[in-house]
């Protein structure tokens, strides 16, 4: 009987889990207003101010004395102080002056506004795309047209553009105010995913029209947690996916585009900086391949009374293992944490090796340059420096310390190490090794099904690896 009563009570609650007390329109930016209709989600959303550290993630609240230029009294720990090798690797670029562990969504706007990187370099309005609730601002600036507004704000000086926004990411950036359906509001992703799909032979893909619900549970995150660059004088935010999403295709894209983020002062190498490619790396992992979305782990369902809601306190799943992992993995919390650490510790060790190799190459190149050796002598080594640094940075910048795709992370670091050491050898006159291509053609197709893997029912077998043993090429073979 108890259960019965219990259930019927809940029935009541559940019939209307929330009351629409306010009308939400496509202009309602303020999350507090949305919160009136959805208090549970709003509560979680607000908790992203919490700062708790995990072995490699979360963040640490570091007190500082506010200044006029930077009123923040608390920031996250500095990654540059944690590992000074980063200063050598990024020398001459804004990141070498200030780079911190990232923290919760609540801080995104102030952290961007006040980072030292704003002072050592003139940043464009483009930056706001991923640090503020720009959806309404874009549409206003574009006279109703999202893309037009995007193009208008991008080239403005940051301070100018900053005036157009007031909130960090808000409900409206991921939800349709009428239906609460998930949706993509970011031009960068709309265009990036279209290019990526085109590379797979799918013409003019419209994510809000063509994506499945389960895909959107990751795509809303892919709006920002991706590698990017500013294209041309218009500073158009661009996701380098036209060749595909693997580090190899992204590097190929940049090579074609002839793009460089900065030139290393001591080595003279035109370098690329990778940023937070969580979406790209997740995409190469077993979880994406199994249809597991970002939200499954970072916004797991939680029960509140008779309702089951998505935990809007977006954070490290290691702070919420029970809900984030244990529905699918029936192991204890400590064991699951240990499994993550095994993958992360391994990535961390290889990352250290790769940094040593890249730093060694930098010193060798610098010495050669000071010694006045002609550019022709340095060309080969610089080419290798450029790629080794990007591959290292791709994993260094990815925020799961390898967890999202452990095997792929290790492969990328192994390639980085090889190229950096070959660079040192090139300076010593060794012929560049006729080694395997950096991009194992084999992997692209094999990994492709994962690309936006959501349907477990229709998995596709990989093509035979270009590099596989002569007699073993046939995909037909078991």
């Amino acid at each position, binding site marked *: 009987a108890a259960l019965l009563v219990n*259930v019927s009570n*809940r029935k009541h609650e559940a019939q209307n889990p929330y009351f629409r007390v306010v009308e939400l329109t496509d202009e309602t930016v303020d999350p507090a207003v949305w919160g009136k209709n959805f208090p549970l989600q709003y509560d979680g959303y607000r908790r992203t101010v919490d700062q708790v550290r995990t072995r490699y993630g979360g963040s640490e609240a570091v007190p500082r004395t506010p200044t006029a230029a930077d009123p923040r009294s608390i920031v996250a720990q500095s990654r540059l102080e944690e590992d000074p090798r980063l200063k050598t690797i990024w020398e001459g670029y804004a990141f070498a002056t200030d780079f911190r562990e990232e923290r919760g969504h609540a801080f995104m706007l102030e952290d961007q506004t006040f980072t030292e990187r704003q002072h050592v370099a003139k940043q464009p309005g483009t930056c706001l795309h991923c640090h503020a609730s720009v959806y309404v601002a874009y549409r206003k600036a574009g006279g109703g047209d999202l893309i037009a507004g995007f193009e208008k704000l991008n080239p403005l000086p940051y301070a100018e553009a900053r005036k157009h926004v007031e909130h960090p990411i808000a409900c409206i950036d991921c939800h349709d105010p009428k239906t609460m359906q998930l949706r993509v509001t970011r031009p960068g992703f709309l265009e990036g995913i279209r290019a990526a799909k085109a590379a797979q032979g799918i013409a003019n893909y419209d994510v809000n029209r063509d994506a*499945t*619900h389960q895909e959107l549970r990751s795509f809303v995150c892919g709006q920002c947690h991706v590698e990017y660059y500013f294209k041309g004088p218009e500073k158009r935010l661009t996701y380098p996916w036209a060749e595909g999403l693997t580090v190899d295709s992204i590097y190929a894209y940049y090579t074609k585009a002839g793009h460089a983020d900065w030139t290393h002062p001591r080595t003279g190498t035109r370098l690329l900086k990778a940023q937070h490619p969580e979406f790209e790396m997740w995409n190469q992992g077993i979880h994406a391949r199994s249809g597991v979305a970002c939200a499954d782990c970072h916004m797991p369902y939680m029960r509140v009374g008779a*309702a089951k*809601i998505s935990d809007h306190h977006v954070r490290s799943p290691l702070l919420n293992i029970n809900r984030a992992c244990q529905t*699918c993995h029936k192991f204890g919390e400590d064991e699951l944490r240990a499994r993550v650490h095994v993958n992360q510790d391994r990535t961390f060790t290889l990352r250290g090796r790769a940094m040593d190799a890249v730093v060694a190459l930098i010193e060798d190149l610098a010495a050669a340059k000071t010694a006045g050796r002609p550019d022709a002598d340095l060309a080969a080594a610089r080419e290798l420096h450029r790629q080794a640094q990007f591959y290292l940075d791709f994993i260094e910048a990815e925020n799961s310390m390898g967890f999202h795709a452990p095997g792929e992370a290790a492969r990328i670091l192994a390639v980085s190490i090889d190229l950096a050491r070959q660079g040192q050898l090139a300076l010593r006159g060794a012929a560049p090794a006729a080694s395997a291509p950096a991009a194992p053609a084999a992997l692209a197709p094999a990994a492709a099904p994962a690309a936006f893997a959501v349907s477990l029912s229709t998995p596709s077998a990989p093509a035979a690896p270009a590099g596989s043993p002569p007699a073993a090429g046939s995909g037909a073979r078991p």
Partner: protein
Amino acid sequence: MVHTGMSGRSGRIRILVVTGVMGAVIIGAAIGLGLYTFVYARGASYLGNDPAACANCHVMREHYAAWRKSSHHAVAVCNDCHAPPGGLAKYWVKAVNGYHHSYAFTTGDFVEPIRITPRNRAVTEAQCRRCHGDIVSTMGHAGDVACLRCHGSVGHRVRE
């Protein structure tokens, strides 16, 4: 224990439905393996709700054993998850499955590990929502959220 099946319907209709569909089942099963075997292998178990009946077939025993250890053993029997709620539909599904399983079992013509068919997967998904409709009503846009993606083992976890 949660009751499903004919609950809420009047006994008279019930008997009609049952006798009517009984035929369907028996005929179905009979086609599959002949009346004698049907009885011998207790194919009639398809008509009841007793999980032990499902376990009459040794190939179902692992599931039965696992179900008894599952969070649902006290609240849901096999048919609560593997057959649609009462009415003709229930007995029809049972007739079809009864035919299929009996045939497969007798001929030994099936691959293990046994995998749920898409059709029965859909039946099960619907049953989850039947009991948990309330709690998941807030969840995204129910219908396109597959419960089994995360809760596939609530009925019985055969391995691990």
